[in-house]
């Protein structure tokens, strides 16, 4: 549902906005860890698919963080 991805985008962007005050590597890690620690796998998978689709509207830190999580997985 479109509604649902918008909500995830907003949540992810909010997280990135907090961590963007940190140097980039730390910010990517912070965002990735936060999403890993607090989101369900279904929510993460949904966002992954969205990143793979086109990822418009996502904070760049989110895109990098999701890539980071996939590598770790």
């Amino acid at each position, binding site marked *: *549902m479109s*509604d*649902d991805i918008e*909500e995830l985008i*907003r*949540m992810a962007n*909010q*997280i990135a*906005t*907090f961590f*963007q*005050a*940190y140097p980039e590597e730390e910010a990517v890690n912070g965002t990735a860890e*936060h999403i890993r*620690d*607090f*989101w*369900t*796998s*279904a*929510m993460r998978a949904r966002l992954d698919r969205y990143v793979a689709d086109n990822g418009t509207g996502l904070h760049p830190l989110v895109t990098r963080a999701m890539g980071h999580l996939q590598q770790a997985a």
Partner: protein
Amino acid sequence: MALLVEPDFGTPKRETEKTVTVQINGRTITVPEGTSVMRAASELGQDIPKLCATDMVNAWGSCRMCLVEIDGVRGTPASCTTPVREGMSVRTQTPRLEKIRRGVMELYISDHPLDCLTCAANGDCELQDTAGEVGLRDVRYGFQGEKHFAEAAEPKDESNPYFHFDSSKCIVCSRCVRACEEVQGTFALTIQGRGFDSKVSAGTASDNFFGSECVSCGACVQACPTATLMEKSVYDHGVPNRSVLTTCAYCGVGCSFKAEMQGDQVVRMVPYKDGGANEGHSCVKGRFAWGYATHKDRITTPMVRDKITDPWRKVSWDEAIAFAADRFKSIQQKYGNGSIGGITSSRCTNEEVFVVQKMIRAAFGNNNVDTCARVCHSPTGYGLKTTFGTSAGTQNFKSVEKADVILVIGANPTDGHPVFASRMKKRLRAGAKLIVADPRKIDLVRSPHVSASHHIQLRPGTNVALMNALAHVVVTEGLVDEEFVAERCEEADFARWRAFVAEARNAPEALSEKIGVDPQTIREAARLYATGKNGAIYYGLGVTEHSQGSTMVMAMANLAMATGNIGREGVGVNPLRGQNNVQGSCDMGSFPHELPGYRHVADAVARGTFEADWDVTLSPEPGLRIPNMFAAALDGSFRGLFVQGEDIAQSDPNTHHVTAALESMECIVVQDLFLNETAAFAQVFLPGTSFLEKDGTFTNAERRINRVRPVMTEQSGLSEWEVVARLSRAMGYDMHYSSSSEIMDEIARLTPTFSGVSFARLDRDGSLQWPVNDKAPNGTPTMHVAGFVRGKGRFMITEYVPTEERTNRSFPLILTTGRILSQYNVGAQTRRTENSRWHETDVLEIHPFDAEERGIADGDRVSIQSRKGAVSLPAQISERMPQGVVYTTFHHPVSGANVITTEFSDWATNCPEYKVTAVQIVRSNQPSDWQVAYEEIKRTNYRTESEPAE
């Protein structure tokens, strides 16, 4: 137990290390310096007769009953006002003293009715007892004193719903007046007139108790030695004959009470002087508003139905549990393991919460458990854990007695946490300074004998900007406690933070326009907090319920660390928790990513301990949070929900969204006292137990674990934990407990911070503040004393990010929400008591200018419209509000405050942004569409099948 009569030492305990040794009636006793002769004698077990003295208030010396003889001292001084001196030799009983006391008592009784046998205080009257003690046998002046007899006396003041005032029985000892001043801090009572005309008066001559400034805390009733101020329940039922020690189930203060009983009927609740949280004080909710427990609306039989529009069908426990389990199992078969979950309640005991999360993790096989703390203090947990290492406040309540500067942010303690507020006000009257950061002019800003040094009347949503500005002043004006920071905090994080807050864009001058407060006020407040010796921060939901709630908690932690205000008495960062067991429900593993004791579900070691103990494999994946549950319900992947003692349909934001989600689910099980708003969408109703029936523990805002003891049997026949255990078994997971004490043993076994806790230990010691373990066998009143729990304190960068909820021409005002003294949360309990007399409906508070601009007069019905919806309420024009901000409470469901709140939430925890909603206000003379629909749902979704005719 029999009736527990606490000793009354006559005057308060002195807190000093210095001691004095004296002789009383030839026996020696050593007491703290400043102790009264009366108290010293009482501690020796040799009580001195008294009338105007009681140990909740300072000595007064007016009744002349407690006279003693002291060697080398002329006359017969009053023992209550005479402090002990080294080597003093006192006699408390001599023929001369006897004669004087009897003479004084004669005067009292000559002007007091002799209707003892029919008096409500018969058996609980200090005047009667003292007359007995002094051997009064005759009254030479007759018994027709002119003031106090039926024909001369004024009629009883029955205006307060819970107690009466009968001046004909009054001996003008001033105990009530002093209790109101010293214990409660309201100053609502006085002695009017003088001499024989002296009379206790609430407010001015034209007031009665209800119309006066009285907040109905009951301290005066407790202090009264006669039947003058008396609970109506005692008048109606007679004096109680047994007591049960228990804990209040309202706010996060967690007051200890003696439930005073006759059989299984509560006659009155009396705050317990040995209760660590409240030390013998209470508020109008805890002391008086317990009648909901036996209200006719209580549902005590399990009920089920196929569709939410069907009438409820009363069934047996077995049928209800089988019905719920079958539905849950079939949902899981169809939609997967993760398609069901549950929500725990902060009003239930630790034991009840623990078994619900255990059922979800072990029997449902997922981590879809969340708790109502999600919508209140989840940012506290995240923020304090990140910076300090522990998801909890740092102090005990007593700590406030040592604070020198108190910073209250986004909390309204006199309404939300009244008993703590009384303790705070006592300290303020003794000279501590106060800074209040709040958009509203709350009572603490200015009320009798309390006046804030600074009121930072910030715009809602700018908390983080304010904290950064305060921190900027601390860092740039050389106010950092360098030694503390160097020794106790992470160096690199501090350096980074220091550079960040020192940037010019974080200066008060740069942020002042955003915050809406002049920079000088911010600078002065920062200096006061940083340099005023012990600085203590107390905060509430005005901090957490924002899109930057977690950032704000970290920003406060930063400020406290930078100024060295952590790790001793009188300082700290202290959340004032909304509900009685918010702390406990979080501790008990109610979050979808954390096992009990705040250990992440992905932590294989922690998970392994639980798996071994529970004999089950647990999911390492975080589960759904409440808002995610609603979203998943709407997309069809989440279909079943167990709701323990919570009313998400009323309390969660964006009601339209929540009810749509609830309607789309296949099975909602509600465990509650009443058919609440959520129950309208439920298929199974499992009757719960009130706190008067529970056996367990609550953990208050100071991490204090208190016992809750049943005073009556479960009205529904089963304890809540037993119901959950049965549902677990029906779901296929074998869960058995023979008592709630066994559940606590399991908690202690599996949770390192609780390892020293047991019912036996609590019954012996009264209460314990966690951590209670080998390192801290007697608990931990103050945290982070020698070092932070996480090792070194971590400063976090707290960039101010404005909320996405913005005002514009269509929605020019900001709505913020809060609480009122007499009501509690969604009102399920307090609305079913006489407390509603103080607050019959929710109102919208609005600044006179904003009202005038819209042609709104006081009392007009207005429509409040946000981007999400509209409701209508009566307006109250109020100088407490700043221009541009309006305020309401959400104690009455029909108010529908959450119809208008948005889905915005805290970035880290999804705690909803209740405190900022852009709205427009217009005059309106009708209920909103939602309110009309709400009335309709009430007609259809709450029906119960009528009993079959015999």
